[in-house]
């Protein structure tokens, strides 16, 4: 009966809300927001049932596992009331007053209105319940004392809803809401301070994420996305690449696959409009100029491997042979002196199921040694970038250990 009431409430909510209603007819508002918030990114394990959780988060002080958010009463959130669900997303406090760790991005979701959050709940409750208990968290003392999060929250979590800026356009406000709220872009793209909180003075300046770099996406023309035309940002978010600007790999590839490509073009444009107006942060990796360096063409392992393995799709001039997604010139990835995303892509490949077949890349972790992957990465950095970067065999060895799954 409770579910029924919730559903009724939702329908009323849907009719009443016009500000953030999506106009994708095929998708309910709840499903759309669940996509926009990319809940599935964390609440699933590879090959597992969507929203049933169990994904491990390795943190400096232990391991956390994402919970089951299907409506199963025993192992999921089937018994949660509306207030409990809203508190979880806005305050980071779960049922029974348990404080979450900020691996759960309530610090961003808090911007969402109660109505939007309940739309998400309505969608989750419409799914098939899955009986699956996530593993116990393994967090060491004192971090296992969840009440400690109260102090953290008091300092770092704002518990404030998004307030539109009346001086800006409706489009800008929509973009700001999507980026700061459900989209939780800053959770990866904003560097964290020593307390693991997003550093507000450095918003969207880029941060490291495992083997990957989440680049600076502030409005800075050189270091951020300020020089990207809006169309390029929309292409990147909807298709996973923008020729000559960027390709979404690793965790960002997942974000495109599970979340961003489902968003309305108008919403993606709103995101672009907002991102291009954020405070410029001049740090991180600068975009390279679109040029190839002929001095890098030297006989050696790197060039040999590139010719054997990479030219078929990328071409020796980096223009991309058959798909604009194969273009290397102009990407920040080839200008990172440490070549982090080059290495990560070689080790993990790029195989989102949504990407067209000519946009996929196999992984090379199993076919080449550390020294070989280091040589070809260095070749790519020198040929297409201007950072004079270098990848060493030790770097590959270190990243290989965490890349193979």
């Amino acid at each position, binding site marked *: 009966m409770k579910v029924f009431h919730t559903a009724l409430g939702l329908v009323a909510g849907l009719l009443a809300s016009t500000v953030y209603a999506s106009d994708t007819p095929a998708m309910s508002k709840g499903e759309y927001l669940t996509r926009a918030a990319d809940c599935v990114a964390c609440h699933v394990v590879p090959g597992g049932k969507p929203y049933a959780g169990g994904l491990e988060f390795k943190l400096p002080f232990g391991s956390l596992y994402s919970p089951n958010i299907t409506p199963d009463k025993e192992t999921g959130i089937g018994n949660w009331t509306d207030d409990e669900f809203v508190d979880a997303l806005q305050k980071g406090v779960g049922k029974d007053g348990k404080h979450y760790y900020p691996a759960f991005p309530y610090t961003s979701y808090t911007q969402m209105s109660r109505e939007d959050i309940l739309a998400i709940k309505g969608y989750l409750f419409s799914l098939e319940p899955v009986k699956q208990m996530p593993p116990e968290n393994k967090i060491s003392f004192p971090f296992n004392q969840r009440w400690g999060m109260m102090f953290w929250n008091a300092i770092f979590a704002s518990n404030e809803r998004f307030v539109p800026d009346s001086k800006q356009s409706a489009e800008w406000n929509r973009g700001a809401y999507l980026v700061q709220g459900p989209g939780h872009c800053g959770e990866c793209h904003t560097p964290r301070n020593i307390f693991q909180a997003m550093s507000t003075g450095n918003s969207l300046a880029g941060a490291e994420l495992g083997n990957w770099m989440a680049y600076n996406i502030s409005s800075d023309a050189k270091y951020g996305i300020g020089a990207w035309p809006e169309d390029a940002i929309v292409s990147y978010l909807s298709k996973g690449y923008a020729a000559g600007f960027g390709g979404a790999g690793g965790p960002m590839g997942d974000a495109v696959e599970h979340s961003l490509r489902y968003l309305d073009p108008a919403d993606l444009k709103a995101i672009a409009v907002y991102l291009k107006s954020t405070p410029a942060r001049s740090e991180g990796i600068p975009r390279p100029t679109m040029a190839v360096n002929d001095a890098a063409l030297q006989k050696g392992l790197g060039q040999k491997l590139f010719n054997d393995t990479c030219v078929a*799709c990328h071409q020796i001039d980096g223009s991309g*042979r*058959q798909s604009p997604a194969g273009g290397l010139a102009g990407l920040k990835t080839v200008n990172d002196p440490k070549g982090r995303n080059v290495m990560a892509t070689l080790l993990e490949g790029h195989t989102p199921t949504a990407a*067209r*077949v*000519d946009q*996929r890349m196999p992984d090379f972790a199993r076919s080449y040694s550390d020294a070989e992957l280091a040589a070809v990465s260095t070749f790519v950095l020198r040929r297409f970038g201007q950072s004079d970067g270098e990848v060493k065999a030790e770097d590959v060895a270190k990243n290989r250990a965490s890349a193979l799954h």
Partner: protein
Amino acid sequence: MQKLMINGQEHNLDVADDMPLLWVLRDVMGLTGTKYGCGIAQCGVCTVHLDGQAVRSCVLPVSAVAGRKVTTIEAVGEQAVGQAVQKAWLDHEVVQCGYCQSGQIMSAVALLQEHPKANDEQIVNAMSGNLCRCATYTRIRAAIKSVSQA
């Protein structure tokens, strides 16, 4: 329905958007001169020309070639460079088992169309994506050079 321009002729084919061009060529059109090797753009046997550029047809969804000109090994001999390359291949008796050779010829023709006087380095850069398990590489290079120096 896909509208394709293959070897100078227009075809309207009822195939799925994401069907690889190689599949369309071989199974739908019966143009079996283009071969299937790895299916992941690693061996080069499936090479055809797309607006004159060598591409791997195994990873090219047919929807990506709509409105562009596709040339396969069956028709490459209608072009002057194609003819010269095929003749050089015979003169040098390049072929051993032959499986990789349509791909090799397509890559060589694309190279020589772009760089009629291709030097050693350009030959290596353009041809190294085409594998030959019979290792006819030295004869391939000699045949290409005979055309580029002619």
